[in-house]
Structures are given as structure tokens and as C-alpha cells.
């Protein structure tokens, strides 16, 4: 009897262990190592040795206008891109949730961007947005619109990047909302219909509150993904023009992998991690389920 109780107690641990070990090895230990690395410098000492410098890498991060600028750009970028993607994804999910003939075909088509890898998408859009030879300017010319510099302009580059990543992000996140919408009981929707609620009223008063958990999940995941966005900036703009797309991850990459200053890069990433945690906690509090 006793034996079987102790087995029961350990069974969940046994099943969870692989996931916990993987999380530890690939997430938590690297985070701790990253913080530790931020306390050292290896680029200023002779013979490639590591030197303990305390918090001076963090001080350097706070004193550097380029790093500050990259945090500012990343915050502005996040403030725009996260609500935009979540809003559009929700709208898209609502649109593809209707039952009309052929909707399954459309549901397959709008998911195609997800199937293409982010770097390929970035490169393809980079070609399409070329100021001289790009497809988009070709279309603009045909319909009589002036040519746009897109990624070559400090006023348009960040918006172009937002557009490119939303091309993948919106259909991807809409999948979660679509699953949520399809999980809503038909009885609830039908009774609302019988009571004479309009589509808008049904969406705002029934669907949205029921999707609260999913919205929280999607917003938090999207926030993390976008705070750590790297590939399109690396492939298309290299942080320019005039630092307008210089996001934190790109600055950290440059410091660490181009200049070889792993200490500063780790400090930047550590600060970014703290910022992300704060933002995510706030999002969870605001969107926590109300019972």
C-alpha cells in the first residue's frame, strides 16, 4: 500500500524530468552563464584571458548612446508591432472562422507564409522592396504611385520590417485564435443570436472575453519573439539607415560576434531579458483571467 503511494508521488516527476532537464540545460543555465559572462571582459586584456570587471559592462551599456538608442527603437517597435499583430491575427481568425463553401482552401492559402522560413521571407521581401528594381515599386508605377525607398529610408525602414514580419506573424498567431474561436460552444453563440445580438456585440461581449487566455498567451509569446527579433535586420538593413532599425538584438550581435566583445554583448542581452520579463509580467497582470 505504502509502496504504491510513493510511486504515485514520483510518477509525475518522472514524466516531467526530461522537459525540466532540457529547460535547465537550454534555457536557465545559459541565462545564468550569460549574466556571469556580463561580469567579465575578454577583449581588453592581453593573451585572450578573461578578466573580472564587476558591473562595468552594465555601466558601459547605460552610458553608450548607440545601445540606448537601440533600446528606444526596440520599445517603439514593440509598442507598434505587438498590438498590430495580435489585432490583425484576431481579425483574420474571425474572418476565416465563417462557414462558407471553399473556406478550407482559403485557410490553407493564408497559412503559406508560415511554411516559409523567416530568412527566406526576409530576402524575398528585400528584393521586392528594392527601390530601383523591386516588384512593389513596379506595381506602384503601374498604378501611378510615386516610387518609395522603403528599406533605404530612415522614415520607412522600420515600418517595412514591421510589415515583413507581420506577413508571417499575423497568420501564425491567428491559428491560435482560430482554435479558440472554434472551441466556443455553439449554444452560447446561438442564444446570443436568438436574443438579437449583432455580430459586433457577439464578438465584443462573448468571443473576446472567452478568448482572454489565448489573447494573453499570444500577446506574451509575440512580445518575446519581437523583442528578440534579429534575422530581417541582419539580412536587410544591418541596423540602418541612420540606425532607424537598430534593434537591441542586432547591437548585441555586433558587440559579441563582430567586435568580439562578449562581455558587453552579454550585458546587453541581460538587460534586454530583464526588460522582457517586466513587460511580460505587466501583460499577464493586465490580461489575467477574471473568475
Amino acid at each position: 500500500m505504502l509502496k504504491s503511494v510513493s510511486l504515485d508521488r514520483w510518477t509525475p516527476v518522472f514524466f516531467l524530468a526530461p522537459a525540466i532537464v532540457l529547460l535547465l540545460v537550454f534555457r536557465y543555465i545559459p541565462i545564468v552563464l550569460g549574466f556571469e559572462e556580463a561580469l567579465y571582459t575578454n577583449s581588453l586584456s592581453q593573451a585572450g584571458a578573461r578578466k573580472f570587471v564587476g558591473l562595468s559592462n552594465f555601466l558601459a551599456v547605460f552610458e553608450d548612446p548607440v545601445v540606448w538608442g537601440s533600446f528606444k527603437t526596440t520599445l517603439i517597435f514593440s509598442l507598434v508591432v505587438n498590438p498590430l499583430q495580435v489585432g490583425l491575427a484576431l481579425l483574420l481568425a474571425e474572418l476565416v472562422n465563417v462557414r462558407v463553401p471553399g473556406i478550407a482552401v482559403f485557410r490553407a492559402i493564408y497559412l503559406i507564409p508560415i511554411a516559409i522560413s523567416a530568412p527566406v521571407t526576409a530576402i524575398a521581401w528585400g528584393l521586392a522592396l528594392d527601390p530601383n528594381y523591386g516588384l512593389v515599386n513596379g506595381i506602384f508605377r503601374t498604378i501611378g504611385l510615386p516610387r518609395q525607398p522603403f528599406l533605404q529610408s530612415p522614415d520607412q525602414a522600420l515600418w517595412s520590417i514591421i510589415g515583413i514580419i507581420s506577413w508571417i506573424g499575423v497568420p501564425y498567431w491567428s491559428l491560435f485564435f482560430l482554435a479558440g474561436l472554434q472551441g466556443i460552444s455553439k449554444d452560447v453563440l446561438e442564444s446570443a443570436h436568438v436574443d438579437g445580438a449583432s455580430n459586433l456585440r457577439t464578438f465584443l461581449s462573448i468571443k473576446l472575453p472567452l478568448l482572454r487566455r489565448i489573447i494573453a498567451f499570444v500577446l506574451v509569446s509575440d512580445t518575446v519573439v519581437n523583442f528578440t527579433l534579429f534575422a530581417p535586420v541582419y539580412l536587410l538593413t544591418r541596423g540602418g539607415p541612420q540606425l532607424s532599425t537598430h534593434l537591441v538584438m542586432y547591437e548585441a550581435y555586433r558587440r559579441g560576434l563582430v567586435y568580439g566583445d562578449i562581455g558587453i554583448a552579454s550585458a546587453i542581452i541581460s538587460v534586454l531579458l530583464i526588460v522582457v520579463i517586466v513587460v511580460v509580467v505587466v501583460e499577464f497582470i493586465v490580461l489575467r483571467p477574471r473568475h
Partner: protein
Amino acid sequence: MFVRKFLRLIVLALSLSLLLAAPALAQDTVELSWITDLPGAEEVAERFTEYNPNITVRVDKVTFREVFQQNQIRLGAGSPEPDIVSVDAPVVAAYGFRGWLLPLDEAFSDEQTDGWIDALYTSSMYDGQLLAPPIWNSAQVMYYNADLLEAAGITPPAPDERWTWEQVTEAAQALANDADGDGVNDVWGLQFGQYNRIYQLQPIPESLPTAVLGEDALTVEGIIDSEDWVKAFTWFGDLHNSLGVSPQGGISSGELFRNSQLGIYVDGGWMINQFINNPVEFTWGTAPHPYWEGGEITVPGDSWHLGVNANTEHPDEATEFVKFASSVEAGRIWFDVWGVWPAHEVMIQELIDDPDNAEWPNQAFVVAAGEAPYVTPRPLTVGYLEYEEILSDAFEDIRNGADVAESLSQAAGRIQREMDKYRP
């Protein structure tokens, strides 16, 4: 029953193969690793193994930008791999400063080091030690599309006629046209091969003449934001903006030139072989690298060097390979495969004297070889990685029409902050 028997057989086979492999592993076969983007690397490695059957070289091919990253991540972490390190000439000092490379002075005879072009020997050294022998060199020349020039009413330069940038600008303005009126030039006047890298753009200020780095090798403020630099890059910005003769964006200048969409194109001598082996459909020519009227002649040069990882487990074998890869024999392999510029005086002279090169198009090699005396190495500073990367930002911004003085002054501030870290 059958399954158990089958499994037992597999286990037996595996243990047997391990037993058989053990003596092979115990033999003195050493595999060296090398990360590079160089065409011809495999050929050089194979020839080396023919002479040294106990040493093989694993060539890991990556893109140009990745060579730096992949090496720097590993070297910075103290990894024993790669054994052989591809070192771009201007970063010899940066790698040397960090203690990443093994000094090679004792392994190289005076005969071998004296055979290299002087500028390349200089950039192989850091702190008085030979760290990274040169395997390549480079020389830039001006390529032109003679058909386009003549259609624009301009007589192309003779093979030994060095145009001034003023002449080039005039020709570029005559070349550029938008015949179909779609707002994008059908023919562009002038573009550089590497239009956002200091390697290619260094002669623009340097030929004025003006300095590209302070004498202490750590000062850029007051240098790269000086009046001369602003003057040089105002011209560069105007080409892309007010004059509209140079294309903006991430274009491939080589492709535009090949498609007869670009009249004048400044790029490395390595393009000559490509134009000969894969002929273009127009009359092309080469001329010496342009300079400013009344200024100095300076031509971008230097190229890849090879070093030995300070933490390698095979220092002797890796040094042996570097010795071979920087020899005249390997220089001939590099040249045959890629037409890349040799690092050896004797090979430059061979190119000039070769009767096959007396006629066009091989004569182009002689034009490029003639640039060797004007080759100026890139700034030798431990902060070169930062210097190059941040200047690239400024060059891109200037191409896109940003204010030149402001772009250069911001770049100077950013680079100076990084350089100051290296002050003792």
C-alpha cells in the same frame, strides 16, 4: 527469438567495427580544420595532403561575413578549432592583440618572407612577431564597357591611362541615362564592387591626400570627420543622389556591369578571369585605378592571410600547412583556380613578362599587376573590426542621401568610443 538473434548480430558487428577502427585511429593521421570562403581552398588542401599524407585538411566553406564570426566565436572561447585561422589582413592586429594566433617567426625562412610583397609582410606582423603570412593579394582596377562609353561619345582610356576621378565623374554623367523614362536609369555611370566597405572606398579620401587613421592607430575623431573626408564623401554621396549616376540599394555591381547596365565599374583583379572565362557580350576594358587630379595614387590592396590557432592541438601540422599555403606553389594554384592576385613579387613579375599576357584580354592581368607599387594597406589598428563595421553604416547612409558631415561625425564618435577601450 529471431529478433533477439538479429540484435545480437548487430551488437557483434558494431563491436567488431570498433575494434577494427581502433588501430586506424591510433595511426598518426591528423585532421586540421579550416574555415574559409576562398575558392581554390580545397585544391590547395589536396596538394598539401599529397606531400603530407598523414595530414588532411577539413575545409569548412562558409560565406565571407561568416568567416569572421565563426572564427571569432571559437577563438574568443579558447577553442582548439579551427587549427588554421583565415585572417583578413586588417584584423591581424586585432587577433594578435587578443592572443589568438601563434607566432610563426621560427618556422619561416627569410627566403620565404622576403618573397612576399613588402606591404603584405608588414600587415602579417603584430607587435614585431609574424602572426599571419599572406596567401593572397589584391589590386583594384577600373573596368569599363567600351560600347557604352563610345555610344556616350567618350573615348575609353588606354590600358595604361590612369583617369582622374574628375574624368570618371564626367564620363559617368555622360553614360547615365533613363531612355525608357521609368525613373530608373537603364544605364548607370559608375559603381564600386564593394560600395559600402572601407577596403574599396579608402582611396577616395586617401588620394586627396588625407589620413584615414591617427598616428597612434587609435584616433579617428578629427580624421574621418575632417573637411577632406567630408569633401571626398560628398562626391560619393552626390554620385548616388544629386548626380544620380550610381545605383543605391543592395545591388550587385558585377551583375549590372555584365548586363550592360553599368558603364564604369571599379573592382578587384579577380574579376578578370571571370570576364575571360565567361565572356560578356560587349567590348570591355581595364584601366588603372583612378585618383584625384593633383592628388596621390593609392590603390586598395592586401587580402587574406592565414594564422595558426594559439590553442590548436596540432601546432606543427598547422604551421606546416600555413607554410605551404603561403608558398609560390600554392600561389600558382590560387591563381589558376580563381585568378586571384599573388602575394609573391616573383609571380607579379611573371605576369608582367608572360608573352601570353601581351595581347587583350590577358593584357588586363598586366594592368592589374602594374598596380602593385601603389597598393596601400588598410588601417592597421586593433580596433579595425569596429572601424570597418561602423564606417559601413556611414557609407550606406551617405549612399541613401544622409547628410555627409553629420554621418561622418557620428561614425567618428561611435568608432572613437570603441577605440578608446584599447588605450593602455
